């Protein structure tokens, strides 16, 4: 007999003869004195070779044990489950229990009958019997019946299990066949996608025109020169507004004034130095103004660039293959254009409104300084004539305040000028933003398709191919699982067919052989007589068990050979299909 691995069953299980007759002779050798019983330990069967749990169970109530079993966290030991799953012991466990129960009943009845007969002084010890006692014949009949029932039960269970295993093998083979069919279908679909991709590539090559535009002024020097110039002009146009809007701390203002005064000299760079020092010292105004200006320039350039895209790229001008991409680009740039317009509007509106109220802000500071100066002067009037220190402090404070007032008056004059020129300054800002937009328009570059891109439909096909490959992977996994299950099922059937759960019949017979001696011994004991003194017990018990039935093996299921052959064919088909299909997801990148 061939195994799944191609070797003979005898090679795997060389201790077991294939012939059932030989099997009976070789497994159990009964002699008058000793009997050797071969243990049923199938190769690879964990169930019957697993270590037995020798832990001593605590004696407790059955109710508590039952409740413990119901609790979800008290899962039954997996080792026990594994021990029971699919093994011979699992099949014969209930039958052995039944047999033990029946033998116990027989022994109980034997004792009862012995007591009953002993109470009546039977059998008479001095009367020899030529025929077996009636009660012993009754007990022998019950023993034979129990033995025959045990054999039948074991045989039926084994046949049922073999039939079920064969049935499950059929199911697994069916699953394997279904997986093979599915893989073949997926292979066909993937091949179809590959063909379609090749066709689309061939079409794309014919329609590979370049879509996009180059800058009108491609020089980077041109761009950066005007970008920096715009930023500087915009900054110097707006920085004073922020300087007036954001008041400095008095100490910082004083330091700024000192620095500004120190910068005043006859040198040619004195004006620039004064301006730079003022800018740097007004750090808050510097950063706010710089960020505002940079955003203005950014918005302006984005407006120009996006406008260029909207003007230059038309779906009507492009081949069909680029229509989707062009629409996508136009859509994105339209959003950028709208966002930039909103941003420019917000910033310019803020600047316009700020300049519109800047004179009043500066005037408020002048008013506050005037009040403070008036207060200092009135306090100076109250200083005693001899308090020269207080007089000096007051004079210094008045002088500082006068200087601050003078600065703020200058600021007010400047702010008034700025406010009066608010509209022209607005148009200056607008013009600078427009300049940034023109710069963006002239220097923007947009390549939608450089002639090397692939057909848009290929992207979808590639995605479909990946999806099919994923399905194929799951089909391969399912098929391999079914193949493994079927192979295991075949192994189990072969194991069950070659197994001999009835080989223990001698032990069972031994259990039954003691029933009649038990009766005799118990009878004699109750009568306080040696059993050997009772002449009716001199004959050997007349117990005849149907052992021939127990020594027969189990037949192979009807379609098992055909099932194995079908499994081999399906397995080969499955392996061939798996080898053909491109199962790796990275294969999709190649198309």
């Amino acid at each position: 007999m061939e195994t799944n691995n191609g070797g003979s069953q005898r090679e795997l299980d060389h201790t077991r003869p294939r012939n059932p007759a030989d099997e009976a002779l070789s497994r159990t050798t009964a002699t008058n004195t000793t009997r050797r019983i071969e243990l049923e330990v199938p190769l690879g069967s964990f169930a019957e070779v697993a270590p037995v749990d020798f832990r001593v169970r605590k004696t407790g109530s059955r109710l508590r044990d039952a409740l413990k079993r119901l609790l979800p966290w008290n899962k039954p030991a997996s080792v026990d489950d594994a021990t029971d799953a699919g093994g011979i012991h699992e099949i014969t466990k209930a039958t052995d229990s039944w047999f033990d129960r029946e033998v116990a009943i027989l022994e109980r009845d034997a004792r009862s009958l012995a007591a009953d007969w002993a109470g009546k002084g039977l059998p008479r010890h001095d009367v020899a019997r030529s025929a077996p006692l009636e009660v012993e014949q009754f007990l022998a009949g019950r023993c034979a019946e129990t033995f025959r029932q045990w054999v039948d039960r074991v045989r039926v269970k084994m046949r049922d299990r073999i039939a079920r295993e064969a049935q499950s093998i059929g199911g697994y083979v069916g699953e394997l066949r279904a997986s093979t069919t599915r893989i073949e279908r997926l292979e066909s679909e993937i091949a179809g996608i590959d063909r379609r991709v090749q066709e689309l590539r061939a079409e794309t090559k014919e329609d590979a025109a370049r879509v996009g535009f180059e800058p009108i002024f491609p020089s980077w020097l041109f761009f950066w020169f005007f970008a920096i110039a715009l930023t500087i002009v915009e900054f110097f146009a707006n920085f004073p507004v922020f300087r007036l809007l954001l008041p400095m701390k008095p100490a910082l203002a004083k330091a700024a004034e000192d620095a500004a005064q120190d910068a005043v000299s006859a040198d040619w760079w004195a004006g620039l130095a004064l301006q730079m020092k003022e800018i740097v010292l007004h750090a808050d105004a510097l950063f706010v103004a710089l960020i505002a200006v940079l955003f203005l320039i950014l918005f302006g350039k984005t407006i120009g660039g996006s406008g260029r895209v909207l003007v230059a790229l038309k779906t009507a001008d492009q081949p069909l293959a680029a229509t989707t991409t062009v629409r996508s680009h136009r859509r994105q740039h339209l959003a950028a254009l709208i966002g930039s317009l909103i941003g420019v509007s917000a910033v310019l509106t803020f600047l316009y409104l700020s300049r519109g109220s800047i004179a009043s802000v500066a005037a408020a500071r002048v008013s506050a300084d005037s009040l403070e100066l008036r207060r200092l002067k009135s306090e100076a009037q109250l200083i005693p004539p001899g308090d020269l220190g207080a007089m000096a402090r007051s004079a210094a404070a008045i002088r500082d305040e006068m200087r601050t007032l003078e600065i703020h008056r200058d600021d007010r004059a400047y702010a008034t000028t700025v406010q009066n020129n608010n509209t022209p300054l607005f148009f200056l800002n607008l013009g600078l933003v427009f300049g940034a937009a023109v710069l963006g328009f002239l220097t923007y570059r947009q390549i939608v398709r450089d002639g090397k891109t692939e057909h848009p439909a290929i992207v979808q096909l590639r995605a479909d191919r990946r999806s099919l490959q994923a399905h194929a992977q799951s089909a391969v996994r399912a098929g391999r699982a079914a193949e493994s299950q079927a192979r295991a099922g075949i192994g189990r059937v072969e194991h069950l067919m070659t197994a001999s759960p009835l080989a223990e019949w001698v032990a069972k017979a031994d259990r039954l052989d003691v029933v009649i001696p038990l009766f005799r011994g118990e009878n004699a004991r109750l009568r306080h007589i040696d059993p050997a003194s009772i002449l009716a017990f001199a004959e050997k018990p007349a117990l005849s068990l149907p052992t021939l039935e127990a020594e027969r093996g189990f037949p192979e299921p009807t379609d098992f050979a055909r099932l194995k052959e079908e499994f081999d064919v399906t397995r080969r088909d499955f392996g061939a299909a798996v080898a053909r299909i491109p199962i790796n997801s990275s294969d999709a990148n190649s198309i």
Partner: protein
Amino acid sequence: MGAMTWTRLALSIASSGLVSSALACGGSAGAKPPSPATNQFIVGIDLSASRSVEALRDSRRLLDDLVESRLHNGDELVLLEMYGSSDTGDHQWIDSVPRARTPGVLTPTDRRRLDDFKAVAHQIVGAMFDPNRVRRIDNTDVFATISRAADYAKAARDRRPTLILLSDMENSTGEMRMERSGGIPSPEWIEVRRTANRLPDMHGVCVLVAGAASKTQREAMIRDFWVRYLAAAGTTLAATNYRAFVPDAMELRC
């Protein structure tokens, strides 16, 4: 080029340019010149009723001229009223002009600070010569003024101390009234105090007197007394520096 890259580059160029320009313009102007010597002017002002209105006007004019023409950055000005200055702090004023940030280089800020100081000093001078106060003062304590000046001169540090006494130099206190006959102490009186180490230490102090005449014998005796007294105190009062009228503050030097 992406918008973010463009923004980042523009920001870095603009900010670095502004900052570097500002730093470059505020950089050093070369090697530092040596620090000029500074002065400490201690001015004793005699506002007693013994002085005429004209003398007071001359003293104020000279003091204003001193403030205006002789004060520089780093100088210290001490104004002492010559009647109660040794007892209380109300009738004296001391302040100094902030030193130049770069020694030897007068920046606009330094000049502004000097101007501020002068303005305040003029106000203090004006307050001191207030006619309403002058009429109520009837004593002059030259000794206490010199002693206080000696103390200020000790704290002059690196400044050159100059004591200018705008007074007729007639001490008029309860202990000594020089306007009286025999009120001028003898040289022995000075010697006794010098021996007892009771004279102020005036070493290194340039002393000038403006407003004290030497026309009469008594005035000459007073002058001689102060010459001897200051000589005993460790300094020299030259006869050319003991004058009734000094037209120009630039002459106030030893």
